[in-house]
């Protein structure tokens, strides 16, 4: 199959804006400091809050001395479990209650003397300045009765039990054929243990909340990627109707899943504002983020693969142990990608989970696939070594026609094309397959590949679209802009649908008063919103046509005969602008809404999911250089070729895909959260000691995509926020294996593992 090469940051489609590298509509606001983030909304009576964190993993507060804090000049109040007004307890987790999924833990902060993790907030100081609040917080002196705690994953993983509760959002284990027997009978096999550490999100904006009560009405500025869930959750915790809470989050400085739930900082800012009668801002320190916002679970994984001598897989076993917290968290669906990647007759996938006395784990970019593909795709690479086969060839030989576990069709699956294009573009054939042979001066050079995979979902979203007699369009929906270019992408879609210049479109978002959106989670937002924007624009075109005045060339035409362009509707025999039509009709504006019902949506989703597996995939190509003296690994080249359906904005898409790869390189080489095995305390809660990649670690990342629309998705598009982190760590590990001959199975691949 030949696919024309399209440089992704140039024009692609036949439409005017979709596919183009359009500048961000909010770029100037952000770069000129006018975009306002949650900790930047001024209020005349604003007070500042700071948290006091527990320093034990588990136990009870026997006393809490706040006297020294209270006498500090400028302290408004010190809230503890002894004096804080009570919140309602966190609701039990249920798929029918979105507010419960937003719950970050079952702990009812400041309503209990119990401590459940090292770092749990045990008091809140409210003061006139942030400096005063933080200083006074350091003077609050709790006394504890410590209880035994299980905090060390390496020790406690042996107490893991099969995961039963499941992750309501993602799939779990599976069995097909007899994997154990097939593995034993396989002429060629590998059987490997892998481990991954805890990782933490490090959004550039630490979590912040500004909370303002007016009677029972709450206005909240919150760094959230999930306005809807957080609002529901707050309504339940504070016993007020949802409609009396307004959340305004026009700009959020990155999330990566870490801002997807209602964390203690948000709740306690609202509680502190309630208790003091002041507008309260709580901006977490970086350390505060580590202590109150969960990261990604650590894992151990076993991947065993059996194959015949020609490299056809006969068995896959992929099992995992991960952790949640005793007070909550969702099991990480580590083997999700393994359901879908290889045509194998015998498959066994399962999870075990252990509950620890730690802060809950949470969503982090591609939960499950990010770490699962590290193990699976490392093992596939190792099998290629065993077989003496090119690792791309091994993958292609086992590329399934239908979904291996369920037997369903893929709506779209172009992994072969992605590998073919990537191999050409990356110069894969120049690779000397022998390990430790390629050199650049003293540096050892290695090249590795791995497959990326992320399931694709979307959700019902309400939008309104308003067309003014001036020809301007306003799209309204409570969407989130956490850096991906939300407003830009939806403006491009709406401009094309209505045939107006991009400059004529304004997207209103980030406000719970707007029509109901969807969380910026699960790579779901862009496609979800696009579906409703398309539907609303179709309604709007019809509504415009209905207004066509007598004598209009549009009069009597069917909508299918018309084209929306040049600011109006046009037939080949003539047309009229929106301004002409609305003015003639004496209308100032026209507004339509699209409100898909949850029931209809669910019915369609169930029907679809019986027929199809929807996913984005990709081929990750990595080249590393390894210093033979010191074991230092430097990524020197990267190419990701992705099958994503239609890409809406070539620039923001490439940027987001690069971001996922950067995060994957961090996973592979340098990031890990250090949790003390005795105390459960995070010992590197800072950007100095938690090593995210810096610029010097990242080469130019070449991004390419196939840009073939998925016929089952709105405009043929899929969400792309997560897929590029998947496979990335394995591509690095496989390149290191090629460069050095060493297979590192526990992340991160720090230099001591290569000495």
């Amino acid at each position: 199959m030949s696919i024309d090469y399209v440089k992704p940051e140039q024009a692609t489609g036949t439409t005017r804006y979709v596919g183009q590298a359009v500048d961000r509509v909010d770029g100037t606001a952000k770069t000129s400091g006018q975009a306002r983030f949650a900790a930047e909304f001024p209020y005349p009576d604003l007070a500042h809050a700071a948290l006091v964190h527990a320093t034990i993993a588990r136990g009870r507060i026997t006393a809490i001395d706040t006297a020294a804090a209270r006498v500090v000049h400028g302290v408004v109040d010190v809230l503890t479990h002894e004096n804080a007004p009570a919140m309602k307890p966190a609701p039990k987790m249920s798929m029918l209650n979105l507010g419960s999924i937003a719950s970050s833990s079952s702990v009812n902060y400041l309503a209990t003397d119990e401590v459940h993790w090292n770092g749990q907030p045990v008091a809140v100081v409210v003061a006139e300045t942030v400096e005063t609040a933080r200083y006074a917080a350091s003077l609050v002196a709790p006394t504890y009765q410590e209880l035994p705690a299980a905090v060390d994953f390496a020790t406690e993983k042996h107490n893991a039990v099969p995961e039963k509760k499941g992750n309501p959002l993602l799939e779990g284990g599976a069995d097909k054929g007899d994997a154990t027997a097939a593995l034993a009978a396989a002429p060629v096999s590998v059987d490997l243990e892998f481990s991954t550490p805890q990782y933490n999100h490090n959004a550039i904006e630490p979590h912040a909340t500004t909370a303002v009560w007016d009677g029972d009405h709450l206005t909240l500025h919150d760094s959230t990627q999930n306005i809807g869930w957080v609002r529901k959750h707050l309504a339940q915790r504070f016993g007020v109707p949802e409609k009396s809470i307004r959340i305004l989050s026009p700009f959020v400085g990155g999330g990566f899943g870490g801002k997807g739930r209602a964390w203690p900082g948000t709740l306690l800012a609202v509680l502190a504002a309630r208790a003091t009668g002041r507008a309260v801002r709580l901006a977490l320190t970086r350390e505060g983020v580590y202590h109150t916002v969960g990261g990604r679970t650590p894992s151990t994984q076993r991947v065993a693969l059996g194959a015949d001598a020609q490299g056809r897989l006969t068995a896959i076993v992929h099992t995992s142990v991960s952790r949640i917290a005793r007070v909550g968290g969702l099991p990480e669906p580590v083997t999700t990608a393994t359901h879908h990647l290889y045509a194998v007759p015998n498959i066994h996938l399962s999870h075990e989970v252990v509950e620890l006395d730690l802060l809950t784990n949470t969503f982090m970019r591609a939960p499950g696939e990010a770490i699962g593909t590290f193990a699976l795709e490392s093992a596939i690479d190792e099998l290629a070594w065993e077989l003496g086969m090119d690792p791309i060839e091994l993958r292609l030989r086992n590329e399934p026609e239908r979904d291996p576990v369920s037997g369903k069709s893929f709506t779209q699956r172009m992994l072969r094309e992605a590998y073919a294009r990537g191999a050409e573009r990356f110069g894969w054939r120049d690779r000397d397959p022998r390990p430790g042979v390629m050199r650049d001066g003293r540096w050892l050079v290695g090249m590795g590949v791995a497959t990326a995979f992320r399931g694709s979902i979307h959700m019902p979203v309400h939008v309104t679209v308003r067309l003014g007699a001036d020809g301007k369009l306003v799209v309204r929906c409570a969407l989130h802009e956490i850096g991906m270019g939300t407003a830009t992408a939806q403006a491009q879609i709406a401009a094309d649908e209505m045939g107006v210049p991009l400059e004529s479109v304004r997207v209103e978002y980030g406000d719970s008063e707007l029509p109901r959106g969807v969380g910026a989670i699960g790579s779901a937002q862009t496609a979800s919103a696009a579906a409703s924007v398309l539907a609303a624009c179709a309604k709007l075109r019809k509504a415009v046509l209905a207004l066509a005045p007598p004598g209009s060339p549009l009069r009597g035409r069917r909508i299918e005969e018309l084209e929306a362009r040049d600011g109006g509707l046009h037939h080949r025999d003539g047309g009229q602008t929106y301004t002409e039509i609305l003015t003639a009709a004496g209308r100032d504006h026209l507004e339509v809404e699209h409100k898909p019902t949850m029931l209809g949506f669910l019915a369609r989703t169930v029907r679809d999911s019986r027929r199809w597996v929807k996913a984005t995939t990709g081929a990750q190509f990595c080249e590393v250089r390894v210093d033979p003296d010191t074991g230092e690994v430097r990524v020197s080249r990267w190419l990701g070729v992705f099958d994503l359906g239609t890409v809406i904005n070539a620039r923001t898409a490439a940027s987001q895909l690069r971001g996922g790869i950067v995060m994957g390189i961090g996973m592979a080489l340098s990031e890990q959260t250090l949790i003390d095995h005795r105390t459960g305390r995070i010992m590197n809660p800072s950007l100095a000691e938690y090593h995210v990649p810096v610029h010097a670690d990242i080469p130019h990342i070449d991004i390419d995509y196939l840009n073939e629309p998925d016929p089952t998705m709105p405009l043929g598009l899929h969400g792309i926020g997560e897929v590029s982190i998947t496979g990335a760590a394995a591509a690095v590990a496989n390149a290191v294996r090629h460069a050095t001959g060493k297979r590192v199975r526990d992340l991160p691949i720090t230099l001591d593992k290569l000495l």
Partner: protein
Amino acid sequence: MRPFAYVKPVDVETAVLAAAKPGAKFLGGGTNLVDLMREGIERPDTVVDVTGLPFDTVDELPGGGLRIGAMVRNSALAADPRVRARYPVLSQALLCGASGQLRNMATVGGNLLQRTRCPYFYDTAAACNKREPGSGCDALDGFNRGCAILGVSESCIATHPSDMCVALAALDAVVEVRGADGTRRIPLTDFHRLPGDTPEIETTLAPGDLVTAVELPPVAAGSRYRKVRDRASYAFALVSVAAALRVSDGIVTEVRLALGGVAPKPWRAREAERLLVGGPADEASFRRAAEAELAAATLRPDNAFKVALAASTVVATLRMLSTEGASR
């Protein structure tokens, strides 16, 4: 942050007097002290800002050395053409440290007094003899991958984090100090103390002593700094090597070697130097010397790799210097 008094004296006498009071601390660029104050680790009553003092120039010394004022910023020193030409090891070490923004603030005097990055020192909830004498050392059985292997004691295994100081140790720098009793000159290698039973006492400075300058003697040998860390920039050294080497007819005639990331102070590798001088400038000798220097290492499970890493890094650095010399 805990409230404190702030003074900014304009002459050295006032500064020394102000800092002699208990609870006083000098403030240079603030890149370390302010962090530590925010964390509640440093709790000065008075901060004596010495950035207004006239110690911000690099001057020639008779005989070809340089005198570096204590208030010279790290960026300025690294970019100084004389430093780059005559002491490349120092310029390279400075540029390996921190980030551009931090180097623009950090001063030479402050860098000498940088405190450890041991995670247990940094967390006031942990036991740390350096921060809280007598409280114990959580690093011994905790995360000690970054900790020291030479010169340690049972009370402390923290490293000295500075890159600049490792280069200064190799260069036989001398620190000029102004105290209540006048001016003293302390060799850099005697400036920092090993922890013993008192890890909280990190230098030989007396209360009120102000670092005013660092003097570098002339060095003829070619020099180089190699820092090995967990990411390409903005990370502390797992191991670093400052080396200067002169080779004549394949024989080492002069060598200076100091190690960072392995000890509570910048570690001048005298034993390795002794073994190298007069011997062949080859890989085997380099390795033998490095291993001899590291023979006394005290290892913990997480930091045992530092022996092999330090030896390889010494070898790699000397190899590079010897080939550079040969090509000249």
